[in-house]
């Protein structure tokens, strides 16, 4: 009989401690001026890796890629990544924040671009792929890139290494 008292006590203490705990939503300051994570514009396709969050936003009138540093709570400059005649979407970043892959749509063609923050250069990984591409992702160690391609008349997944060579993955004989 006495042991039956302990059960509700345990339940209540568990519930009470659970209310103050995790998981919880972090609040980063909202900045109408566009210097923080969220702004008056829309923010799309976030991807987190280590202390960095990359996403696209139309806060300056065109859809561009931004990178937010969770430690310093500020945006990180990405010189040379966004250009005026390009829509950039679906960014993904490596854990050290050095490499970013994204889809760039320019002159009616989409391509996967690989941006190196140290050299400030973007390289086209899919220049000899005559197909639509989308949804790129990069591993946290920056070694591999995977994306969707329509080269076979449907969406299939291709895996490349950092230098743009396709990985040897078994494919069904077609």
């Amino acid at each position, binding site marked *: 009989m006495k042991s039956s008292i302990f059960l509700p006590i345990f339940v209540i203490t568990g519930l009470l401690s659970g209310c103050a705990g995790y*998981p919880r939503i972090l609040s980063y300051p909202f900045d109408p001026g566009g210097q923080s994570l969220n702004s008056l514009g829309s923010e799309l396709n976030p991807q987190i*890796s280590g202390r960095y969050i990359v996403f696209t936003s139309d806060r300056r009138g065109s859809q561009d890629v931004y990178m937010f540093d969770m430690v310093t709570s500020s945006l990180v400059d990405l010189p040379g990544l966004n250009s005026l005649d390009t829509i950039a979407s679906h960014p993904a970043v490596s854990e050290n924040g050095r490499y970013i892959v994204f889809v760039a749509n320019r002159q009616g063609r989409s391509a996967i671009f690989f941006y190196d923050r140290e050299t400030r250069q973007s390289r086209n990984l899919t220049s000899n792929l005559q197909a639509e591409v989308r949804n790129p992702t990069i591993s946290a160690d920056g070694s591999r890139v995977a994306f969707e391609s329509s080269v076979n008349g449907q969406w299939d*997944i291709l895996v490349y290494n950092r230098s743009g060579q396709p990985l040897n993955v078994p*494919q069904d004989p077609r």
Partner: protein
Amino acid sequence: MLRFLDGVLQAHRLPPTPVRAASPLGRRKVEPRLCLSQPRGLPPLVSVKKFTPRFLLSRPLLWSLGLSLVSLLTSCSYDDIPIGSTSLNSRYTEEQPALSGNGRFLAFVSNRNGNHQLLLYDLEQQQFVRISGLNRPETIAENPSLSYTGRYLTYITTDQGRPVIDLYDRATQQSQTLTPIYRGWVRNPSISPDGRYVVFETTIHGQWDIEVLDRGPNIELDIPNGAPP
């Protein structure tokens, strides 16, 4: 299929139970006879005989029915791994790729085998990895994201029609909902390589914005071997 066959075998293996069930019956049969031998015997003895065959059959029948139902139910759960195929792509749509932090695992959504399912592929072993309990028949999983060694997998699914972010732990082979009481539409979750933070799109401010969810300092982090925590 194997599970189903096993279930059938179990159902066939059942008949030994009547033997066990028959032994108490025997005793019961004896008891009425003993007491019946003192007053007039015959009419109640007949009624006992009518009673026994029903009892003899109903017990094992109920058992076999119950067990076969259970085996049927378990055999109806999804088989996660595409049978006989080690190919990453199929003749159906493969989309939404997500690489694990070390680049070894690839999670994606595929339409093969006639249903929309989330699959996990090992690029080193070049085969699929079993993620049991993730794909459920009454809902779909979308937008996968993996932690460093692929231990944690976040994805979008629905809970009674409401989109929620679920986290699958490959160590415990269980899913938990990270946003059970979140009021808002959610989309595109992404988990940090160590597994502590999850970012996602939310409509809670009247447009698509980004929310960061902290799973807390007490979770088991998914970090590479030898790395300082």
